[in-house]
């Protein structure tokens, strides 16, 4: 199965997004990680917490990671760098807007789409229009 890691500067943002995704993708494991410090008490990122979040999903066939921007992206890239190869090869770092991208991944993954299909849906989320 596929797992999703949501990474945000804000723990609340990551957890709120997980709440939305859990509703549409009940069969997918989703981990939210956000904020700096031991408990995400301040805004920012904590690479150790991101690593723990990824390792929570080490049994999944594929791990999709989606970040908000800036330091979360750098932190995720750092963590991927230090992970063992057997985990690293399962990871797909997605270049897409956080909410729309994560939603697309969750919907595709929960309906059993292939990794390529999930990736494409996530990247397409960048062109998602909500007013037309």
């Amino acid at each position: 199965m596929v797992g999703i890691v949501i990474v945000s500067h804000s723990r609340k943002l990551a957890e709120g997004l997980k709440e939305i995704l859990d509703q549409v993708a009940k069969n997918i494991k989703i981990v939210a990680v956000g904020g700096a410090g031991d408990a995400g008490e301040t805004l920012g990122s904590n690479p150790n917490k991101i690593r723990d979040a990824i390792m929570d999903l080490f049994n999944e066939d594929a791990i999709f990671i989606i970040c908000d921007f800036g330091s979360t992206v750098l932190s995720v890239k750092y963590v991927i760098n230090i992970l063992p190869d057997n985990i690293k090869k399962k990871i797909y770092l997605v270049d897409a807007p956080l909410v729309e991208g994560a939603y697309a991944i969750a919907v595709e993954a929960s309906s059993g789409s292939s990794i390529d299909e999930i990736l494409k849906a996530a990247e397409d989320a960048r062109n998602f229009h909500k007013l037309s």
Partner: protein
Amino acid sequence: MVAELNTNDIYNIILHAYELIAQNKDYLTNLDAAIGDADHGINMERGFNLAVNRLKSINIENSDIGSILTTVANAMLETVGGAAGPLYGMFFMNMATASSGKRSVDLKTLVVMFEQGLKGIQDIGGGTQPGEKTMVDTLYPFIEELKKLSANNNDINVAFDEALKAAEKGMLATVNMVAKKGRASYLGERSVGHQDPGATSMYLVLKAFYDIIQAKAKERR
């Protein structure tokens, strides 16, 4: 003539880097307030503070340079919180790998360590090049100068003297650059006129190397 740096020198460099960062904490934060999120000095001070506290509790005599720098890398990663955390974490981690198991390093090894450190920053920063208003603008010319001088010279003191001048020039050049990376890049042209906080903290780290090397050179005279 300083032909090598040993574990204790590297330890002293980290202690001194903490001093320089702490002394310039408000300055770094003010630079960051102009084009970022006003936390760079606070974050860097917190990272080095943890690094120094951890180093003070280990036996330096029994440590190698790689393990000292690994401690610094982990402290930066765990506590910095902003983009500087993974960037400096990667920088020190790669320097640590290049000096793993070594209790002393010569100029040629130092060049490799800094090259690997730069590579780490570029790897996670999306291939950051000079001219993008980042810490690379300080580090890149520093390494170029160091590399040039290491070709036919083994004196670390001479090499770092010249290289630090190049680093300072690189740092000052960020004032006129348009930011291409990080939060400052959202400002575009409006980022011109402000010195980059990351380029400045990198200068302080390199100056910590220089100052300790200078002190070592004087001792030997």
